[in-house]
Structure formats: structure tokens, C-alpha cells
């Protein structure tokens, strides 16, 4: 009986381990997100495998939040499941400091690391070590309906103020026609409403923490920022805005229901795509608004490729990353899919390219990225880096809880004052627990 059981277990293990026999010398497992640019990359990998015989690629595509959990637990436990990970500007500084990532300082000269946009490169560097190579970079900007703006008798400046946005929203709103002046994120989450609100708060002079890590939600700047956002959304936003994230607002904008939408620059290629968008030829772009304080309400993010420390195939992984984030790759995409589909926001040379300059949202994307400074994100000095996030491990949990308070305030379930008081209380508690505050 024992023998039979052992044989059965052995046989099952054998079958399990041989189901995906790899004949290549090296198989790289790459964890990535289901975003358009990543999917395009998967379709073009033949170019890489042809140039690098002996390296096979296995893709693990996951939804962003699932991916984040999955790669975090793997890198933290040194599980060794992935050779290349797609991570963002939030993770890179934290993981780099922990020694979880392989340094990219030794990329070949042909890679031309100095060509990377300084803001993006800065966000991926810790103590002089580059820990990830940017695959595409994004900021946020205003996308607006040129026809509705004209109808309202207004003209969108390249760099609008928040008060202009509010005035324009009031004039563009026509609730009987189902048109809402402004669509903004309201769904709770550190990467949802808090990305938008943290960046917005920066432009109102607010900050998450002072230089001694004291929470600042009790400051008049936060009150002004949140009150402005909630008043504007209540008066001119779509119904049920507290459950709208990127995708919901994208759907509304594409159906012609929003006058303005302030969100990720990557959305520009979606809303101008006539296949999916009913307003493709009517969209204009402008920088994210400001309040005259020297900071704009735009964020900075770069989906980047990194190698977890301890992988067996470091050299092959580096070869792959150098290929996927190279100038040649951008040219390859342009050749196969057109310039509008090239992953934006990583290289200076791309923006010097005359062909790329013809893409309608190219200039505004670059200007938006250059406006954001992750090392000095706020009007007053802060002890952290990150524009729409605070690059500390505790931020995800705290910001999601704060996001729930602000989302509830938008839904009218609580007042601005109560939401801010609760945010202050819970942030103080968590920061004390984590040992930042005495």
C-alpha cells in the first residue's frame, strides 16, 4: 500500500514537473500587467528571441493589484518565481533600499542610459543605483472636449488654473443632455482617488507629512483642496462619482459625457482612438491645473522592468530588459504599429523625433512628465519622495483607508471636516505604530 502510494505521488510529481518541458537553455519568466503597451511588447518578442537564441520567454500577465501582491510576496520571500518583474515608481525605491533588486548600473553603453528622461530616471534611482529600467512613463493632464469648450465660449490655456477648470466645468455642464463638466476619480484606493487627490493637494500647497513625519490632514491647505474637489464634483460631476476610477471615467469620456477629464496621460491614446471613442476627433490636451503656488496637480509614474535579487538568470534578464526599454524597441513598435503606439515617456530622443512630434498628445505628455518632480513634490519641504504617493511601505494601507474617508465625503456620507479628522487620526496611529512618530 505504502509503495503504491509512493509510486502514485512520484508519478504525479513527475507529470507535474514535466508538463512544460523547456528546450531552451534559459527560460525567463516575466511578470507584467495587462496594459496596452505590455500586450504589444508580448506580440513583438520574436525580435528578441531571434536575436538571442537560447532564451525563451514565459509571460505571466496579471491585473495590477494581483500582480503587486504576487511579486511583492515573491521578492520578499525570495521565492524565485520571476526573473523580470513589472513594477512602478512606488515599489522601486522601497525594494531597492531593501536590497531586493539587482542594480542596472552596468547596462551596456549602447543602451544610452543618459537618454532616459531625468524625472523618470530619478524616480528609479536609489543612492546612485538605477534599480529598474522604465518601459513607459506617464503623468496626468487635462483632456477636454474642444467642441464643448468652444460652445461654452471659453478657450483652454496650455497651463490652466483650478479656478479656470471650475468655471469651465460650470459652463460645460448640461445635465439635461447628460453632459457633466468634469469627471474625476472618486473610487477609494491608494492608486485610485488618492493618486489624484494627493497630486491635486500638492498644487494647493498641502502635503502628507511635515519634515518630522507628522500627518498634515488638519492643515488648512488640505481642507481647501478637498472642499474644492468635493464642491466641484457635486455641482458639475457625473452621478455616482464616488465609485468612478480610471476605467469608469474613460468609458464616460469616450461616450461624450464629460467636458473635461484629468487623468493619466496614457488615456490620450484611448480617447483619440476612433475605434473605441465617439469623441476621438474632438479632444484637446492641457497641463494639469495649478493654484499659482508653483506646483501642478499632475503625477509621475513609470511602469518599469526590474530583476529580483537572487534570480538564476540575471544576465539573460538584463539582456531582455535592455532590449525592451531600448531606442531600437521604440523604432520597432513605430515600424509595426505606428508612432502613436510607441510606449511614451521614457526617452529624450523620442521627443526629439520629428515623426513622433506629429502625434497630437506627444508634447503635452512630455511637458506633463517634466512638470513633475518626485524629489520635491510639494510646496513646503517633505521628508519623502513620490508625487502622488509617499514612497514608504506603509503608504498603501494608510492611503487606501484615507481614500475611503474621502470617497465617503464625495458620496455625501460624511462631511469634509469629519473625513479629514478621521484621516488625520488614522494616519497618526499608523505612523506611530510604524515608528516614524514618537
Amino acid at each position, binding site marked *: 500500500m505504502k509503495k503504491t502510494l509512493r509510486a502514485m505521488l512520484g508519478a504525479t*510529481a513527475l507529470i507535474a514537473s514535466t508538463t512544460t518541458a523547456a528546450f531552451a537553455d534559459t527560460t525567463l519568466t516575466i511578470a507584467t500587467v495587462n496594459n496596452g503597451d505590455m500586450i504589444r511588447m508580448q506580440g513583438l518578442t520574436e525580435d528578441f528571441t531571434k536575436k538571442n537564441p537560447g532564451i525563451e520567454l514565459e509571460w505571466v500577465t496579471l491585473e495590477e493589484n494581483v500582480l503587486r501582491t504576487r511579486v511583492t510576496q515573491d521578492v520578499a*520571500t525570495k521565492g524565485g518565481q520571476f526573473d523580470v518583474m513589472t513594477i512602478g515608481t512606488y515599489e522601486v525605491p522601497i525594494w531597492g533600499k531593501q536590497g531586493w533588486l539587482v542594480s542596472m548600473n552596468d547596462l551596456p553603453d549602447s543602451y544610452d542610459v543618459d537618454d532616459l528622461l531625468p524625472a523618470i530616471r530619478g524616480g528609479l534611482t536609489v543612492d546612485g543605483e538605477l534599480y529598474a529600467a522604465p518601459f513607459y512613463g506617464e503623468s496626468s493632464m487635462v483632456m477636454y472636449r474642444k467642441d464643448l469648450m468652444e460652445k461654452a465660449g471659453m478657450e483652454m490655456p496650455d497651463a490652466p488654473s483650478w479656478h479656470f477648470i471650475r468655471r469651465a466645468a460650470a459652463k460645460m455642464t448640461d445635465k439635461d443632455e447628460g453632459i457633466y463638466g468634469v469627471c474625476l476619480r472618486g473610487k477609494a484606493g491608494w492608486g485610485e482617488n488618492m493618486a489624484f487627490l494627493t497630486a491635486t493637494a500638492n498644487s494647493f500647497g498641502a502635503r502628507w507629512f511635515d519634515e518630522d513625519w507628522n500627518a498634515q490632514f488638519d492643515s488648512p491647505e488640505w481642507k481647501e483642496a478637498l472642499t474644492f474637489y468635493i464642491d466641484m464634483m457635486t455641482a458639475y460631476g457625473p452621478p455616482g462619482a464616488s465609485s468612478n476610477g480610471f*476605467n469608469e471615467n474613460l468609458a464616460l469620456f469616450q461616450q461624450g459625457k464629460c467636458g473635461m477629464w484629468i487623468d493619466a496621460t496614457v488615456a490620450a491614446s484611448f480617447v483619440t482612438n476612433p475605434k473605441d471613442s465617439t469623441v476621438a476627433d474632438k479632444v484637446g490636451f492641457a497641463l494639469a491645473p495649478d493654484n499659482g503656488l508653483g506646483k501642478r496637480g499632475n503625477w509621475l509614474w513609470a511602469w518599469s522592468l526590474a530583476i529580483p535579487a537572487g534570480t538564476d538568470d540575471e544576465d539573460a534578464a538584463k539582456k531582455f530588459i535592455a532590449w525592451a526599454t531600448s531606442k531600437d524597441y521604440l523604432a520597432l513598435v513605430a515600424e509595426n504599429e505606428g508612432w502613436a503606439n510607441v510606449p511614451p515617456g521614457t526617452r529624450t530622443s523620442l521627443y526629439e523625433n520629428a515623426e513622433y512630434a506629429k502625434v497630437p498628445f506627444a508634447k503635452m505628455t512630455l511637458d506633463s512628465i517634466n512638470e513633475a518632480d518626485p524629489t520635491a513634490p510639494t510646496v513646503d519641504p517633505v521628508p519623502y519622495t513620490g508625487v502622488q504617493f509617499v514612497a514608504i511601505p506603509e503608504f498603501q494601507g494608510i492611503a487606501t483607508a484615507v481614500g475611503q474617508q474621502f470617497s465617503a465625503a464625495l458620496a455625501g456620507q460624511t462631511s469634509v471636516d469629519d473625513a479629514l479628522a478621521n484621516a488625520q487620526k488614522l494616519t497618526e496611529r499608523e505612523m506611530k505604530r510604524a515608528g516614524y512618530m514618537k
Partner: protein
Amino acid sequence: MARAISARRKALNTAIAWTIGAMIFFPILWTFLTSFKTEAQAIADPPIFFLFDWTTENYTTVQERSNYFRHFWNSVVISIGSTIIGLAIAIPAAWSMAFVPSKHTRNILMWMLSTKMLPPVGVLVPIYLLFRDLKLLDTQFGLIIVLTLINLPIIVWMLYTYFKEIPGEVLEAARMDGATLRSEVLYILLPMAVPGIASTMLLNIILAWNEAFWTLNLTAAKAAPLTAFIASYSSPEGLFYAKLSAASTMAIAPILIMGWFSQKQLVRGLTFGAVK
């Protein structure tokens, strides 16, 4: 004595049952319809029900981008493997609890059930570390073990309930005729409990097929089942509802078809012993 039910009452009950049924089934129907729309139609407001140009474009894209059959095969191996091992452990366990109970049987049953009360994420890190050290990460075998263990309490409980319904005297008679323990279980108990075992098996396969916490957390590329296949089409930045719906339809179709054909056994098994 059965109560006489008026025709009106009957019609009302039928209407309520159909309404509830339709409400439960609606998300599946909507997913199915969306999978044949373009991405623009999928988000149209007001929503379009049937009057659109049906397209199979999403299915083609999904097929091109993902290796559906590898995920499908992983799902089959994992769900059937965990069910077979689970039954092999649970049948003797349920037999002993139903026919030779000790004073601790009740406590053991409750204790087994209590393991289901812990949120799985609570033991994620220890299990992940164990799997890493035993080289079980991203293997079908590893997932079979985990899914067997997490579904074992349900299998034992279900089988225990069915076995309790079988008169112990029948087994006693067999024993008096000289049947060994093995032949008692194999030739007397199992044939009598076939409907119960069949429904337990079906339910366990469905649970293992749909399990989306461990299967996502313990796999990468090689052993990822259909749950990971669906997860790869969800995106917070980009509207891929039509493709996601196509992937979901492809993932649930096999289990839905299996459930359809075996619904008699399932219903009979689930209501077994409910009415005395």
C-alpha cells in the same frame, strides 16, 4: 399530510422562483453577451442587449494572446486530482465518524470545520515559504495538495452526513456474514452512498475549479489554471471588458456544461437528508 396549494399561490411561487433564478443567472448571461460585443459596445450607455453586430473577434484575440489549453489542462488536473485524493482520505474518515463514533467525533468534526473559518490570507506566508523550500511553487502537484487540504473539511462533512443516513444495521449484517472491513466499505457502503459521493465529487470539482486565491498566489507560468487566465485580462488602465468577458466565458464554460449535465445528481446530493 401534504397541504393543498392553490393555483394562485403556485403561480406566485413559480414567478418568484423564476425571478430569483433569472437574477442569479443574469451576470453569466451578460458576460456571455458582452463577449460578442466590441469594446465600444461593451461600455455603451444605455446598455445594448441583443441588437448588436455579434463578433467573435474577442475570442480570436484571446486565443492568439494566451495559451488557453494549457490553463484549461492545469484546471482539469488540479480539480480532478485534488478531488480524487480528497475522497480517498475522506471516505475512510467519514466512515469511522459515522459508524464507529467516539466521544471526540463531534469535536473533531467541529475542529475540522473551524479550519475553514480562518481567512486563507492568514496562512499565505507560511504556506508560500513551505512551498518555496519544497520546490512546490508553480507546480500542479503543489496546488493539488493545497486544494485537497482546503476542501477536505467540506468533503468529510458532506460524506459524514450521507453515511449517517445509511442504516448501520446493513453494515453490521455484512460483518456478521464475515465481510472484512475493506469489503464492507467497498461492496456495501460505497454502492449505497454513490449519489452522495457523486455530488460531493462534483461540488469539490466546482470548488477547486473556481478557487482563485491559492491558484493565483502559488502559480506563475507553468501551473496557472483558468483563474489566472481570467486575471490576465483584467486591467485598471484600459477598457477590455469584452475581452475579459470572452476569457471568462471560456473559463466557466467547461464547468457550466458539466454542472448542467450533472444537475440532477448535484441537487439530489445537496438536498440529501434535508427533508425527513
